[in-house]
């Protein structure tokens, strides 16, 4: 009797207790958005079928899935191309951005001379530079032009964030290094770079997204020929009025972006979790 009496109470308490626990918190973070997206997809499917929307205007998710499966080999090859342009541009931007900031921090006169140029490059719309760059690099090296354009777009957040980070190093810590006769290299490796890491990672998150945007836009501008990334697949599908194929390529592109963001967030967590305010959960 008493067992039966306690049963309902425990059932009622369980979810509340569960939702407060830490594992549950993480679990909910994954489950809630995925469930919501699935819900939207179902609504989309039903709405398109019930209202009889033409698949040229808005194809149902199932139709898009079919298009994805049918064009899979071609789309996969394009995905690989866009992915590699994005990654290469990103890495180039990170290396050159950090390198340039470090040089700027050491040689202020160079910073004065070059930084404004970097700003000009940043504020000039990249699409406008693309045709010129294509002429310079040569139309038979479109891949190279794509890489350069995407790098230019992704470069600036790294440069400006790292520069800010290098300037934000604690003054007393600088003095401490000075008192202990640290060499310029020791100062860089032991103090300036670790202290700037949160800024650099913040810049990398922005820059990762821009690398993808950059490679897509560059491909649009470069046109056909050897450029056969996902962006060009979208243009092709649009010319054929094949909206399902367009959506398929589009989804792959967002997938790339999501991958990018998730990877950089994981990296940020990994590098900062032991010490930085942004990544630690302080016990109270």
């Amino acid at each position, binding site marked *: 009797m008493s067992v039966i009496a306690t049963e309902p109470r425990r059932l009622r308490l369980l979810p509340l207790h569960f939702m407060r626990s830490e594992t549950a918190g993480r679990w909910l973070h994954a489950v809630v958005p995925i469930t919501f997206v699935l819900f939207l997809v179902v609504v989309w499917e039903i709405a398109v079928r019930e209202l009889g929307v033409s698949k040229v205007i808005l194809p149902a998710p199932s139709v898009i899935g079919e298009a994805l499966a049918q064009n899979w080999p071609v789309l996969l090859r394009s995905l690989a191309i866009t992915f590699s342009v994005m990654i290469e541009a990103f890495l180039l931007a990170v290396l050159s951005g950090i390198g340039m900031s470090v040089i700027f921090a050491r040689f202020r006169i160079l910073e004065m001379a070059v930084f404004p140029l970097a700003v000009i490059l940043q504020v000039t719309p990249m699409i406008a530079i693309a045709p010129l760059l294509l002429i310079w690099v040569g139309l038979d090296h479109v891949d190279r032009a794509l890489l350069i354009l995407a790098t230019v777009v992704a470069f600036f957040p790294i440069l400006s964030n790292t520069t800010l980070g290098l300037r934000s190093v*604690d003054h*007393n*810590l600088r*003095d*401490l*290094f*000075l*008192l*202990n*006769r*640290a060499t310029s290299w*020791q100062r860089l490796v*032991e*103090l300036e770079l*670790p*202290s700037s*890491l949160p800024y650099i990672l913040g810049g990398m998150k922005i820059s990762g997204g821009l690398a993808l945007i950059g490679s897509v836009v560059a491909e649009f501008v470069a046109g056909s020929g050897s450029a056969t990334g996902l962006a060009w697949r979208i243009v092709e599908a649009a010319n054929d009025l094949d909206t399902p194929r367009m959506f398929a390529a589009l989804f792959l592109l967002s997938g790339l972006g999501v991958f990018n963001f998730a990877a950089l967030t994981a990296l940020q967590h990994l590098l900062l979790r*032991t*010490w*930085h*305010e942004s990544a*630690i959960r*302080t016990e109270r």
Partner: protein
Amino acid sequence: MAREGNVVNLVENFKTSIVMPTAQSFPAKTVPVMESDAVATSKRPIIRIDGVTKTYRNGTNALEKIDLDINAGEFVSLVGPSGCGKSTLLRLIAGLGTASAGEIDWPTSTYDAKGHPMPDLGFVFQEPTLMPWRTVFDNVYLPLKLGGVKRKDAHDRVTEALEMTGLARFAAAYPRQLSGGMKMRVSIARALVKRPKILLMDEPFAALDEITRTKLNNDLLHLWEQQGWTVVFVTHSIYESVYLSSRIVVMTGRPGRLSDDIEIDAAYPRNEAFRTSSDYGEYCTRVSAALHSASAAGDGEH
């Protein structure tokens, strides 16, 4: 008491591993010293502050015509109202920043080959100034690391410094996991790890509880006596300054000027008996009075 025993042990260990500074290591630049004369040694200026004025670029006049000789082996406390320029003076002594007028002179022997002063200086900043991305151990190890000492060779010295400040159990912790007072103790351990001959300390014990503070006061005094260190110590506590110092320098409110220079003529080693003696009470009263008139003398708000 076991605790006392511990302290003494640490001090003993510390002593055995350090080469005691000899008279020859500080030949005075201006004052002739008889090499065998121990009394003369204690009056040998190691830092000469000559008419130092510091005006910050924003117009703040922090120090005004400071003349002060600090002698080898002295324990000098700087006291004065908040904002009177104590930290500024300490930083100038360390060579961090430049005076607007006047000069700070170290004996030539304390310059290194490149012409930088103070080869052997420990500095405790007013803030803990720790690297948040490093553990307590690595923070304390830093001065040795920068000096090219391998991690495994530094292990004993770092551990010793951590034990002295009661932090041995927290070697693997990160600064964010420590209390304010513990962070300050890490900073003190870091200043001690290189076994400097000259210690500049900016309110090192301000954030500590009475018990820990008393313990560290005693440890510091032990080490100072054993090692023949020279200490310049900024504090807001009159009691602390009287207990520790051989000399107390009182500064006026902004702009900081020297107002009093009080010799604390009580024998070392000092212990709890000194704290209850009538001498101690008299010195405290004297310093307190000097501080009051010095605070009134400043023209800055504080």
